[in-house]
Structures are given as structure tokens and as C-alpha cells.
């Protein structure tokens, strides 16, 4: 069976400090993988490196994304190939309307893939359909990107953009942070509705709570730049109960 993304022995550093120290991960179509781990383990670094943030230096390893060498692609080409990052802290962009930039994005993605531009009518229909999916007020859809949005609205807007762009692989970076239970449910619902047998998701989270709503096929523990433990969804519950010290102790015993 083909893989969506295959990360092998990935090492990445920033300002000379190594954060990822040999990370391996494989995601197949239709799968949801959760990545959990304590603060500073490298979870957000992984998300940034995959999305193409230029501050990070890749020192070793490879990432195959649906047959392409991901690390050779620019940030925008990664998006055009079907990678999507839902930001932990979405950026506010005054004066740039959500729908305006999404139309540009969608059309540039289509152009890259040799498809025709979307008509204004089809685009607006898509906006209506997808904003309903994440219960995002259509007024917010036409407002400036994230400007003056509440924390929950920003996260919903991330999922709305994901719905609009229909990526092959979505990386959700701590999408649950700062969300109350209702917002969490709406965001998770959106993600679940977007799931198909062809696409996949990497859900990065600190807490097990989100995984009650987005049920993962695999749970991985990221610790000190590596995945140190993988297991079925029950692993998340065990982590919630015992904390990360348990993993640390296990690792120390193994040495």
C-alpha cells in the first residue's frame, strides 16, 4: 500500500541547536496519527519543518510526500502538492480578506496542478458549504484574516481553510490549545467530516482531550526529538493517566 508521507531519520536544528534527532514516521492514506509529547520535545518543530519554515536547517534524513521529495519543495509547492498546516498560533493579517486570499490560493494551487481557475460562482458556493462545516459565520469568512477573531474563531478558520483547500495530508499543530469544549467539538467535527479514505492527518497535541473527538489510528510519543513509543489509541489514555515521566523512566531502564 502506498504511503502519504514517509519521514526517515529526520534531523533538524535551529540556530545550531538540534531539535529533531532522527525522527521516523509513516502515514498511509485514510490514517490519523496523533503525536503527543511533553513541552520542548520537538512537536511544533516537526510541523514547521514539514511546512517548510526556512529558519530550520535539515541536517539529515528524508521526507517522501506522495512520491515527491518534500524537502526539495518550497513552502508554497508543498501546499500545492497537498500538504496543509493548521497553525498553533494563526497569524492575523489586517486588510487581507479571508475569501480573497483563499481564492488566490485555490487558483494558484489549481494552476500548479494544471487545472482551470475556479469560477466566482463555484468559489462562493464552496465558501458557503465549507464555512457551514465548521460553523464559521459567513461574515467571518469575508473579514480580514484572523483579525480580531477569538481564539476559537481562529482555530475554526484554520479548519475552514483546510476544508477549502482539501489537502492530502493535514498537520494540526496543537489545534486544541486555547479552545473551550464547544469550540473543540466543532473543530474536531470539521476534521472528522473532512476525512476520506484517500487523505490523512497528523494531529499534534499536548492533551488526550482532543483525541476523544478525533480518534487516531496510531498514537506516537515524541520525546527529545525522536518518536520513542507508538501504539493504538489507548496509548493516549495511558499517557493521560501516567504522565510523560512514565515514558522517561521506561527509556532510562532500557539504557
Amino acid at each position, binding site marked *: 500500500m502506498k504511503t502519504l508521507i514517509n519521514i526517515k531519520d529526520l534531523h533538524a536544528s535551529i540556530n545550531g541547536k538540534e531539535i529533531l534527532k532522527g525522527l521516523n514516521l509513516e502515514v498511509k492514506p485514510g490514517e490519523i496519527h496523533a503525536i503527543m509529547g511533553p513541552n520542548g520535545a520537538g512537536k511544533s518543530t516537526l510541523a514547521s519543518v514539514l511546512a517548510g519554515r526556512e529558519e530550520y536547517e535539515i541536517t539529515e534524513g528524508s521526507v517522501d510526500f506522495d512520491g515527491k521529495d518534500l524537502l526539495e519543495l518550497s513552502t*508554497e509547492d508543498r501546499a500545492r502538492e497537498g500538504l496543509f498546516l493548521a*497553525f498553533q498560533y494563526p497569524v492575523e493579517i489586517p486588510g487581507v480578506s479571508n475569501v*480573497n486570499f483563499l481564492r488566490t490560493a485555490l487558483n494558484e494551487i489549481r494552476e500548479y496542478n494544471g487545472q482551470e481557475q475556479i469560477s466566482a460562482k463555484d468559489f462562493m458556493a464552496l465558501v458557503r458549504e465549507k464555512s457551514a462545516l465548521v460553523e464559521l459565520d459567513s461574515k467571518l469568512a469575508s473579514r480580514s484574516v484572523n483579525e480580531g477573531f477569538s481564539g476559537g474563531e481562529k482555530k475554526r478558520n484554520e479548519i475552514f481553510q483546510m476544508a477549502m483547500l482539501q489537502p492530502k495530508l493535514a498537520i494540526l499543530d496543537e489545534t486544541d490549545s486555547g479552545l473551550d469544549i464547544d469550540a473543540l467539538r466543532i473543530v474536531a467535527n470539521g476534521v472528522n467530516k473532512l476525512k476520506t479514505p484517500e487523505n490523512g492527518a497528523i494531529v499534534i497535541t499536548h492533551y488526550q482531550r482532543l483525541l476523544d473527538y478525533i480518534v487516531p489510528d496510531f498514537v506516537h510519543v515524541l520525546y527529545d526529538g525522536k518518536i520513542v513509543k507508538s501504539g493504538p489509541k489507548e496509548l493516549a489514555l495511558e499517557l493521560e493517566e501516567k504522565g510523560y515521566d512514565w515514558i522517561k523512566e521506561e527509556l532510562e531502564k532500557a539504557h
Partner: protein
Amino acid sequence: MSQTLMNTKLDQFRSKLTPSKVKIDQTLLDHADAYLSGREFPTTRDEFWKYTRLTKISNLEINVNDSIIQSIPEEAIIHPNAQKIVFENGVFRKDLSDDILQVQGVQFSEKGSSSFTFQEDVFYALNCKYSTDAITIDIESKTILKDPIHLILISSGDGSVSMPRIVINAAKFSESEFIVSTHNVNSQNCLSNVVIEADVQENAKLTINKIQNEKSSNFSVFNERVDQALNSCFTINTLTLNGSWIRNNVRVNVNGQNAETHLLGAYVTNENQHVDNHTLIDHLAPNCQSNELYKGVLDGKSTGVFNGKVFVRKDAQKINAFQSNGNVLLSDDATINSKPELEIYADDVKCSHGSTTGQLDEDAVYYLRTRGLSEKSARHLLVTAFIGDVLEKIEDEHVVKYAENALSMRYGWSF
């Protein structure tokens, strides 16, 4: 005597100009004469000209060129229904202009006297002494103009010097819009030195939309002087889209209570362009409001100046005055000198001013790129949004469209 006349660069410059045949006040002329005689062009040691050099002006090869244009160039059409008044090289082209007298409630005359006193400024003085032509437009009381009056200022030929004087009297309860735009036809190294004097009387509303869109190596200086009376509303929007060297001096005296003043400006520069906006709002009466927003995007080796002064005089209580200047520098070689100034002598006022200068938000660029936008599109979108903040506040949609088109043609931005 003639020996001493040629002593200064300004004298040499003046010797190539033709003294005005236009009828303006003798006292104004006397002041201009006295002011100019023996004087030198200001230098960067003068506070008012600290960041703007006049060498290019003083070294200008001046020629007197015949009129060449047969019709109004297409790029000078901004509003489809506007009444057009055309100047070529500062000379009124009656043959190309609409007959403004046909418009109900508008008076038009070819003279340039106004109630303003002499202003101590070289370019203002030159415009008095060497005025190439002058017109006065009166908007009669209670007249509400449906369509704007468009003053089209065209430079043609090489080294032409235009010094038109435009006087606008907006009488009580009148409402009118003027568009003033500069263009050029086969011209380079031309100087436009324009004076616009406007008297906004009680309860009158006057808007001036100024579009500066000269292509090549042309220079312009604009001196706008405005008096505002009780309950009046004055707006001036200065859009600098192109041109090699531009200086705008906007001066508004708010003499009456309950008046509103709005100053908007947008300047987009590249290459070696230089754009200098000096504004002065003088609050002489209480209970007034003024808003000022200027935004600039500077690329290449271009330089910009913003100097916005707000005076609140001793008895001008309950003034709300807001001023803001924002700049984005797109290249390492672009420069902006921004200086907001507040001078407040009253004690019960609400005034604020702010100035920001920076680069485009790189986090925003990255964010947009993660959505599939190319770096170029992302930057265009951010710049467009930055300038769009000014454009969206302009009421005349034809003016906005024109500016958007000009910017999209020059920079590939889409609004």
C-alpha cells in the same frame, strides 16, 4: 543692478521665467517680489526642506514650449461624468475644456485673486510672480454638484514650467468635489508648481481628490491652502502613484467651530523617486475634528518624507485631532523620514499621532505561502491591503478604481 540680480541660483532660475500676465492682487505680487529678490533656493539646512533637495529644480533646463496636445489623453480621464478643465504646461486650454458655466450654480473666471495673504515660501512666491495662468471657480451657495470638476494638468515637451493658480470658493451650504490630476505627454524634466487656494465657507462641504501620476522625470510642487469656516467639511486625498520628484504642502486653517477636516494620503514609490508630504492643520477654533492618515510603500532607492503638523491654538478647546503615518519599506535602499508634530496650546483636547515604519510581516508572508500562494502573490496581497486601507476610505469610486488600475499596471498588484 542686473549684475546683482544674477547672483543667486534662484535669480538665474527666475531669469528664464516669464513674469505673469495674469491678474492677481498687486499686494501679493509686491510681497512675492520682495520675498524672492536676492533670495536663494532653500537648502537642507532649512527645517522645512530638511529631507528634500532642490538641486534638480534649480538646475532645470527651462524651455517655453508651444501647446501640442490635440485632445485629452485617455489616461487623464478619471471620472466619466466630470466637468473637465484642462491646463497644458500651466496654460488654460479653453478649447479642450468643458464649458463650466453651463453647470448650474458654478461661476468661472480667468483670474487668480483670492482672500489669502502671502505665504512665505519660494514656490508659492514663484507661482504668484510667474503664474502661467489662473482660474477661479465659485460654487454658489446651496449648490450641490452632482458630478466632480476635474482639473487636468498636463505637462508636454522638455523643460516646460507650469505655474497654474487655482482658486476655489465653496460658498455656504454648497457641496462639491474636485479632482486634480497631473499627467504628461512626451515630456521630461518639466516642473509643475501648482497653487490651489480654497475657501470653504459656512456649512460647505468640499472634497479634493488629487492624483499624481506623472510618468517620467517630471517634478511637481503643490501648495494647497484652505480656509474652513463654521460647520464646514473639507477633505483632501493625495494619491501619489508615480512621478520622479514631488513635494506637497497642504495647509488648512480651521477658523470656524464644528468643522471637520480629513486628510488622506497614499504614496507608492520605486526606483529613484522622491515624494515629500508636508501637511499643516491649524485649529484656530474650538469643537472641531481632524483626521489624517497617510500611508506609503517604498521600494528601490526611493525616498519619502512625511511631516504632519497639527496646531491647536490656545482657545481651540474640545478639539479631536488624529494623525497617523504608516510606511512599508520593500527594499534595503528605500528611505522614509517621518515626523509627526503636535503643538497644543489648549488644555481640553483629544489629540493623537503615530508613525510606524517597517517591512512586510514575514510571518504573514509565510502563513500565506503555506496556503499555496507564491511569495510574490503573498507580498502583493499584503502591500495591496496596506495601501487599500487608505483607498477604501475614499468616497469617489472612480478615483479609487483609477488608482487601483494605475498601481496594478505599474506593479502588477490586484485589488
